[in-house]
């Protein structure tokens, strides 16, 4: 029981919500789905800004690409017909991998990507698809590459000074072959031991562009750039998948381990990379 909260605000616009956050600073906290947040609120918080009424629940596509509102639930991503057709349905399938039905119905895109849990499943898929984060500070809207948003100093601002409003995925990725793999205790487990998302621009069986994002074994999702270089310009075959997965293992070796032991995490991520690549190759030969 936290008896230090004196105010609940229910803003109806993102500008209003961000304005409140900017004015109140660390004395306020934003809550949307609240699947974890309500149990971990700091005792210094006096105001809860419940953003669940904001009109940020859209999933739509335009010429620039896909636009996903920050308040879309994980469940709505999983069930979206539009997302089922985008990049081999990788966003929808990744959403479906996360936790159990109740948490997916309550949890939001915004909460999943701005809360710094290494095992949250959406950051890796947005990272692999080269997504942009759209946010507001209450005065103006800004856009930043997803990779930049995940940098430590920026993540500290989200939920306090910045409010994520939308995730934009480039139009070019619609026809990409993509696949996500995850290892967890059970299918319904909240956390993963390792998660890998691959996204490939394939033409005539040749990999023109490759993106591999790994999470859970690292403190936050990251692209495996060296493994991507191994793939680019090569035929989509098992040899390429094996070499890329070995490169992922080496690359992870140079990084800090996350929730799993380093050796196990590295090995698992390598196996998942190979599996994901083989499935992606097969889905769009």
């Amino acid at each position, binding site marked *: 029981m*936290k*008896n230090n*909260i004196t105010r*609940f605000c*229910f803003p109806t616009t993102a500008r209003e919500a961000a304005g409140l956050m900017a004015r109140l600073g660390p004395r306020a906290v934003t809550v949307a789905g609240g699947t974890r947040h309500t149990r971990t609120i700091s005792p210094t918080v006096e105001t809860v800004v419940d953003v669940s*009424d904001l009109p940020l629940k859209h999933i739509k596509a335009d010429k620039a690409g896909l636009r996903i509102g920050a308040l879309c639930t994980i469940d709505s991503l999983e069930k979206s017909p539009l997302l089922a057709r985008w990049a081999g349905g990788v966003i929808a399938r990744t959403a479906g991998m996360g936790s159990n*039905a*109740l*948490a997916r119905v309550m949890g939001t895109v915004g909460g999943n990507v701005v809360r710094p849990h290494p095992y949250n499943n959406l950051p890796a898929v947005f990272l692999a698809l080269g997504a942009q984060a759209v946010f507001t500070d209450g005065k103006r809207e800004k856009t930043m590459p997803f990779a930049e948003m995940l940098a430590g100093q920026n993540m500290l601002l989200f939920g306090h000074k910045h409010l994520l409003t939308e995730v934009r995925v480039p139009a070019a990725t619609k026809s990409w072959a993509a696949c996500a793999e995850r290892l967890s205790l059970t299918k319904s487990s909240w956390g993963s031991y390792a998660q890998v998302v691959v996204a490939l621009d394939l033409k005539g069986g040749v990999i023109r562009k490759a993106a591999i994002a790994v999470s859970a074994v690292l403190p936050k999702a990251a692209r495996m750039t060296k493994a991507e270089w191994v793939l680019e310009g090569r035929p989509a075959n098992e040899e390429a998948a094996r070499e890329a997965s070995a490169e992922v293992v080496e690359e992870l070796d140079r990084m800090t381990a996350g929730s799993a032991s380093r050796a196990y995490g590295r090995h698992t991520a390598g196996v998942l990379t190979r599996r994901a690549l083989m499935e992606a190759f097969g889905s769009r030969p």
Partner: protein
Amino acid sequence: MTTKTRGRGTLKSVNGKFDITVNINGKDKPLQVSAGEYLLDALRREGYKGAKRGCDNGDCGTCTILLDGKPALSCMMFAAQAHGRKVVTIEGLGAPDRPHPIQSAFAEAGAVQCGFCIPGMVLAAKALLDENPDPDEAQARRALDGNLCRCTGYVKQIEAVLLAAKKLQTTGKGGKR
């Protein structure tokens, strides 16, 4: 104290208490809740004992309610967040003398052992059948994967959900209503 601006406005506490109004099982109910009190605690205090306290961490699903028609974990949201919203608890679904077809299906399928998890399962099943009146077994399993049962192997509950779907279709009560 409620200060209505736009939408649900702002709630300010008076002596650590918030005055809220929640539509519970079809009736607007004024409640006084403490700062930081979870919806589960407020509902149980008001006599809606069907929502059970299990893990207090969003993992077991025994506290499941329907919030604006969607299943929600009442242990994971503050009571004040339910201000102005519609809550359905198991008490709003049926009564012992007039059980809802889903409740009848659970009894007929032998899906109830100790019963602790059943209110949450029935409400999760209701949310599924409102959205998808004719689920297959995999869909039923997936919809109930957030509701843990320590007595059974889940087989009977899944059978109950599929039986409930048939009952609702037969009675013409399937789908959202």
